[in-house]
C-alpha cells in the first residue's frame, strides 16, 4: 500500500501530459491514523452557525410538523386541502418522494458493493443514512395521512382482542409489510459497517462520547473472526436488500396501479416508480455530498469531484431511463383511446396544472440532459448541487402530477374539482426539516465516512505502467 503514492506522479516524457492520478481518492492514500483524525475532527467541529441551524430546524419541526400535526389530529383532516375526489394529496406525494430518496442509499451501498465499484467507498455511509432518515419521513407521512392516526397499529398483524387481522388483499398491507421490511433491513445494513468505525471513534473519545461509542460499538475489536462474521453478514445483506429495494417502490406504485382509476391502472408503474425513485435518490446523494463537502471539515479529501462525476453519469443514465418509462406511460393511454384516460392526458398537458406538468419534464429531462453530458460540468460540485435540487423538484412534481392532479379526473365528471393544498405545505416543510436535523445531528455523532472501507480500498489499489500510460489496477482481495 505504500507503493502507490510515489509512483503515480511519474513525470512522463511523452507529448501528452500524464494524468494526475492523485485526484482519485483511492490513489491518494493517507495513513489510516491521519484519516481517523480527520474524520474525528469533522465530527467534533461545530460552529455557532451549526447550532443556529439546529435550533432553527428544531423550531421549524416544533411548529410546522408537531404543532400543525397536533392541530390536524385535533380538528380532523378537514384542515387539509383534501376533498372529493382528491382523497390522497401531498401526504402521499411526500411519502412516495421520501421512499424514493431512501432508494439511493441502498442502491449505492448495496448494488455498488456487490458490483465492486470502488468509487462507492467514501460515500456509502452518507447514502445509507439518507435511506434510514428518508424512511422515517416516509413513515411520518403515512401517519400524517391517516384519518385516525391513533389507530394506526391496527395495520400490524398480531393476535388481538379485536379478533380481526389486517386484510392482505389490500395493496396498503403489502406496502406496510414492504416498508417495514425495508426500514428494519436498511437500519441494520446501516449499522453493520458502522461498527468498526464506532470502535475507531471509541478509541479516540473521552467523556460522554466514550460512553456512547463504547456502548454502540458493542465491544468490537477487529479480530479476524469478527471481521469474517461482519463481512459474511454484510454480504448476505448486500445481495438480499437489492430485491427488497426494488420491491418496496414497486409495491408503492401498486397502491396506485391496483386501483380502477384512469391513469393509475397501469402495468408500467412498477419499474417507472423504481426508476423515478433512483432518479430523485441519486440526485439527493449529490445534494448531501455537496453539503458534507462544503460544510464539514476535512471532507474535501474524502468527497471529490470524481464522485460527483460518477453520480452525474449515473444520474444521466437514470434520467434517460425515466424519460423512456414516462414516454411509455404516456403513449399507451394516448394511443388506447380510453375516454377518461384521454381526458386525463389532456388535463395534464392543457389543464390548470399544465405548468406543473411541463416543469416536471424540464426538471427531470431537459436540465439534466443539458448539463450532465459534459464531464467538466459533472466534476463541478456546485453545478451538481443545482442539478440535484432541480431533479428533486422535478421528481416531487412527478408524484404530485400522478397523485392529486390525476385524481381530479374521475369517471363521475360532476365530482371534478381542483386540489388546493393548505396545511400540507407546513407539514411537508416539517418533514424536510426533520430529515435535515437528523442528518445534521448524525453527522456529528457517527463517522460519516467509513474509514476502514476507504483504507481497505486504498490498500487494494496500485498503479501500473502500460506502455507509456499509468493505469490503475485493483486487487481483488476482499
Amino acid at each position, binding site marked *: 500500500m505504500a507503493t502507490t503514492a510515489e509512483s503515480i506522479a511519474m513525470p512522463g516524457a511523452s507529448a501528452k501530459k500524464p494524468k494526475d492520478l492523485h485526484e482519485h481518492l483511492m490513489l491518494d492514500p493517507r495513513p489510516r491514523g491521519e484519516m481517523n483524525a480527520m474524520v474525528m475532527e469533522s465530527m467534533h467541529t461545530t460552529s455557532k452557525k451549526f447550532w443556529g441551524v439546529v435550533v432553527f430546524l428544531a423550531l421549524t419541526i416544533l411548529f410546522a410538523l408537531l404543532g400543525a400535526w397536533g392541530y390536524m389530529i385535533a380538528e380532523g383532516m378537514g384542515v387539509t386541502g383534501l376533498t372529493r375526489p382528491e382523497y390522497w394529496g401531498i401526504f402521499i406525494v411526500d411519502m412516495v418522494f421520501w421512499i424514493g430518496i431512501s432508494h439511493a442509499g441502498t442502491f449505492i451501498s448495496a448494488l455498488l458493493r456487490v458490483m465492486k465499484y470502488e468509487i462507492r467507498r467514501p460515500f456509502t455511509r452518507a447514502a445509507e443514512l439518507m435511506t434510514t432518515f428518508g424512511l422515517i419521513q416516509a413513515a411520518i407521512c403515512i401517519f400524517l395521512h391517516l384519518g385516525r392516526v391513533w389507530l394506526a397499529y391496527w395495520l400490524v398483524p398480531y393476535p388481538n382482542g379485536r379478533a380481526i387481522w389486517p386484510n392482505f*388483499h389490500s395493496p396498503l398491507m403489502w406496502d406496510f409489510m414492504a416498508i417495514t421490511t425495508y426500514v428494519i433491513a436498511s437500519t441494520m445494513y446501516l449499522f453493520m459497517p458502522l461498527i468498526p468505525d464506532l470502535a475507531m471513534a471509541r*478509541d479516540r473519545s473521552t467523556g460522554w462520547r466514550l460512553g456512547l461509542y463504547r456502548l454502540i460499538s458493542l*465491544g468490537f475489536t*477487529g479480530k479476524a473472526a469478527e471481521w469474517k462474521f461482519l463481512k459474511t453478514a454484510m454480504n448476505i445483506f448486500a445481495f438480499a436488500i437489492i430485491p427488497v429495494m426494488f420491491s418496496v417502490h414497486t409495491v408503492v406504485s401498486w397502491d396506485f396501479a391496483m386501483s380502477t382509476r384512469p391513469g393509475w391502472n397501469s402495468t408500467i408503474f412498477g419499474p417507472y416508480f423504481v426508476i423515478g425513485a433512483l432518479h430523485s435518490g441519486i440526485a439527493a446523494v449529490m445534494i448531501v455530498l455537496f453539503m458534507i463537502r462544503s460544510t464539514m471539515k476535512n471532507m474535501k479529501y474524502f468527497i471529490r469531484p470524481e464522485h460527483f462525476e460518477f453520480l452525474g453519469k449515473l444520474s444521466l443514465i437514470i434520467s434517460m431511463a425515466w424519460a423512456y418509462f414516462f414516454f411509455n406511460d404516456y403513449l399507451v393511454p394516448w394511443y388506447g383511446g380510453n375516454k377518461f384516460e384521454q381526458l386525463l392526458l389532456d388535463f395534464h398537458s392543457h389543464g390548470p396544472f399544465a405548468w406543473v406538468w411541463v416543469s416536471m419534464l424540464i426538471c427531470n429531462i431537459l436540465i439534466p440532459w443539458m448539463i450532465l453530458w459534459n464531464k467538466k460540468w459533472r466534476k463541478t460540485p456546485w453545478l451538481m448541487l443545482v442539478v440535484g435540487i432541480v431533479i428533486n423538484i422535478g421528481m416531487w412534481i412527478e408524484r404530485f402530477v400522478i397523485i392529486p392532479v390525476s385524481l381530479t379526473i374521475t369517471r363521475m365528471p360532476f365530482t371534478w374539482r381542483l386540489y388546493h393544498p393548505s396545511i400540507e405545505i407546513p407539514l411537508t416543510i416539517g418533514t424536510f426539516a426533520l430529515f435535515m436535523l437528523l442528518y445534521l445531528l448524525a453527522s456529528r455523532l457517527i463517522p460519516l465516512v467509513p474509514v*476502514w472501507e476507504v483504507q481497505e480500498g486504498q490498500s487494494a489499489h496500485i498503479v501500473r505502467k502500460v506502455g507509456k500510460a499509468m493505469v490503475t489496477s485493483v486487487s481483488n482481495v476482499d
Partner: protein
Amino acid sequence: MADTLTLLALFADIDPTVDAIDKLHSMGITDEKMDVISGIPFNEEVLGRPDIPTFIPRLAMGGAMIGFIVALFLIFGIPGLYPLNVGGQPVFPIPPFIIIAFELTMLGLMGTAFVGLFLAGHLPTYEPKLYVPELSDGKIALVFPCSVEQQAEFVDAMQSLGAEQVRPVEAKTL
C-alpha cells in the same frame, strides 16, 4: 507449569504480519492459540490461516424459512380463522401471498443474518479485552500466549520480522 503471559506484536503492514504468523507456527504457537486483530479486514487466505467456520448463512436460511412460514400463516391461516369476502376475491389469494411471502422471507433472512452476527461474534461484550487503540489506526496485531521464560525469545523473533512493538498485554476495558 510456568507463569504465562499474553504478548501482543504490532505490525504496520500485512506482509511482515504473515511472516510472523509463520514464525509463530514454527515456534509452536498453533492457529487456535493466536489471534489476529486488525483495523481493516483480511481474509483467511491473505493471512494463511485456516478457514473460520461460520453458521451465519445457515442461520439466515433458517430465518428465511421462518419468514416464509409466517407468510403462509398470514395468507392461508388467518382467512381460515376469519373468512371475509372482499370484492369477490378468493378468500385464499395466491398473488398477494407471493408479495407477502417475499417480504417476510427477506425480513427473516436479513433479520437472522443480523442476529447471527451478534451470536457468532459474541457481541455485544463489554468485558475487558486484549486490545490496543493503535489497531484502529490500521495496525495489525498478533496476540499469543507465551511463558515468562520464553518472552525474550518471542520478542526478538517478532522484532526481527519488523514488529513495531512487542509487549505483554492484559485485558482492559475498552
